[in-house]
């Protein structure tokens, strides 16, 4: 018997806007659901990691835990931009693999105002904010333009990602937007940063998600459908990073943080990209899903766009992507989004994703990517 971490419980608080609820209350909801799913109480948790970005204060992790009564277990807050939930899960995984704990909780919580993220969340300096160079979508727009120029990716293919994700989101009760959208609606929505339009973007919002991990030794006591956390890799960007927060670069030929994390994750899980049954990708904007599907080696360079137009990434396609609607439909509570992906991945591998169920799902890959190139690739297996 190895010391792999096993997911025994998952919980989520719907992603959306909940002005009546505190960030700690959102966390409590997700944790309660995850504990119930694992058939345990908070008293059984031996260590906890909590991911948050915009509401971070030193006591946030313990404050969420104290909703269940005082505890003395170690609780540590984790921040890694949009990859925070992935980094948090990795901490929990390491705590299990290291052998000291048998039950560890990973929680992601976030509450964010409407509109663009505050400059500090993405790590911008004051001068970038003062000169208007701190609008995240401009970086994705320029990446999209380069991809279109280099590979012939079309704006219709990019819009189709949004159509697909809204279609999947309409089947997900935990998504903020549950309404299908036509290609014309996406293409004709307001231009934010050319060539990307409003409905190609995710919106920052509120939400929480929680995952209970157990050691292989005890997992069978709690679940009849163990989902193995086969790999969780976390990398940040090498030089250059012509993306959010970066302001200069040089052509070094380095691989991106997403590719580096993917290679590490495939190796740790002992699988290749061809073994992936479904993937949850960082669709902060629709072009990102195409670009990352290539950086994750799921499709060859330049084939991410055609894959979308050929329907390969639809629920019944060869490689379904963002089966829960992605953050384009769910919205992006930064600290919680990665664990929201794990929630979907586990549901799919348990065969409990209802109308979104992918046939014969055996391996789920979850990818988040944020400022500074923080990238996490998680591989779940049954």
């Amino acid at each position, binding site marked *: 018997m190895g010391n792999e971490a096993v997911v025994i419980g998952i919980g989520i608080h719907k992603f959306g806007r909940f002005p009546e609820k505190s960030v700690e209350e959102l966390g409590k909801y997700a944790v309660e659901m995850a504990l119930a799913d694992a058939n345990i109480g908070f008293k059984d948790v031996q260590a906890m990691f909590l991911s948050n970005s915009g509401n971070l204060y030193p006591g946030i992790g313990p404050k969420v835990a104290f909703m269940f009564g005082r505890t003395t277990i170690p609780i540590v807050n984790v921040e890694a931009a949009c990859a925070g939930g992935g980094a948090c899960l990795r901490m929990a995984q390491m705590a299990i693999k290291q052998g000291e704990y048998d039950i560890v909780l990973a929680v992601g919580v976030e509450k964010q105002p409407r*509109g*663009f*993220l*505050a*400059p500090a969340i993405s790590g911008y*300096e*004051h*001068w970038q*904010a*003062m*000169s*208007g*160079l*701190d*609008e995240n979508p*401009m970086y994705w*727009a*320029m*990446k999209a*333009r*380069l991809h279109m*120029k280099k590979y012939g990716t079309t704006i219709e293919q990019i819009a189709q990602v949004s159509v697909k994700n809204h279609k999947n989101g309409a089947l997900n009760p935990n998504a903020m937007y549950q309404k299908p959208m036509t290609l014309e609606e996406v293409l004709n929505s*307001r*231009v*934010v*940063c*050319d*060539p*990307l339009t409003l409905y190609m973007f995710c919106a920052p919002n509120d939400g929480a998600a929680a995952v209970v991990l157990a050691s292989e030794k005890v997992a069978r006591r709690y679940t009849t459908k163990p989902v193995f956390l086969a790999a969780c890799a976390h990398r940040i960007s*090498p*030089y*250059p990073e*012509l993306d959010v927060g*970066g*302001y*200069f*670069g*040089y*052509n*070094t030929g*380095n691989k991106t943080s997403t590719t580096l994390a993917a290679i590490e994750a495939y190796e740790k899980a002992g699988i290749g990209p061809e073994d992936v049954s479904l993937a949850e990708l960082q669709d902060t904007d629709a072009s990102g899903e195409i670009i990352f599907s290539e950086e994750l080696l799921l499709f060859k360079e330049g084939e991410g766009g055609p894959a979308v137009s050929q329907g390969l990434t639809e629920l019944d396609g060869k490689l379904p992507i963002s089966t829960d609607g992605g953050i384009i439909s769910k919205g992006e509570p930064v600290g919680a989004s990665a664990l929201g992906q794990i929630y979907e991945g586990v549901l799919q591998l348990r065969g409990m994703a209802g109308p979104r169920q992918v046939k014969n799902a055996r391996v789920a890959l979850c990818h988040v990517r944020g400022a500074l190139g923080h990238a996490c690739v998680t591989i779940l297996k049954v």
Partner: protein
Amino acid sequence: MANLVPFKNGVFTTPLQPLENIRLKGVKCLSCGSLALGEREYCINCTSKDLEPHIFSKYGKIYSYTIIRHAPPPPYPQESFKPFPVAWVELEDGLYIISEITNCGLDEIDFDLPVELVVEKGWTDENGNDVLMYKFKLIKK
């Protein structure tokens, strides 16, 4: 007259006047060959300390671009916002740098167009100093 201060230390050559003589400066790594903006002790790419100062060419071309059509979040002044073009500029030396593009209509911007560095007052800081900011302007024939 207000004092002139750079938008960030270690990025502009000095003196700061006349403005047209200011260039962007940085380092070249003698170990891996990478260029980086600003003074630094370690190579941003390979961590070597074997660096030499480098003054960048004031000329470059548009590598990729977009138009900012929605006001950036505060503290960017919301009331004076008008859509403007932004680009990754590729300097002649090979450095990429993000910049607002001036002297350029919203429909005029395109890949590979030639641009030139300009340094001008960007905003006033909390001490009343004029903050100097770089931009790149489209070179028109």
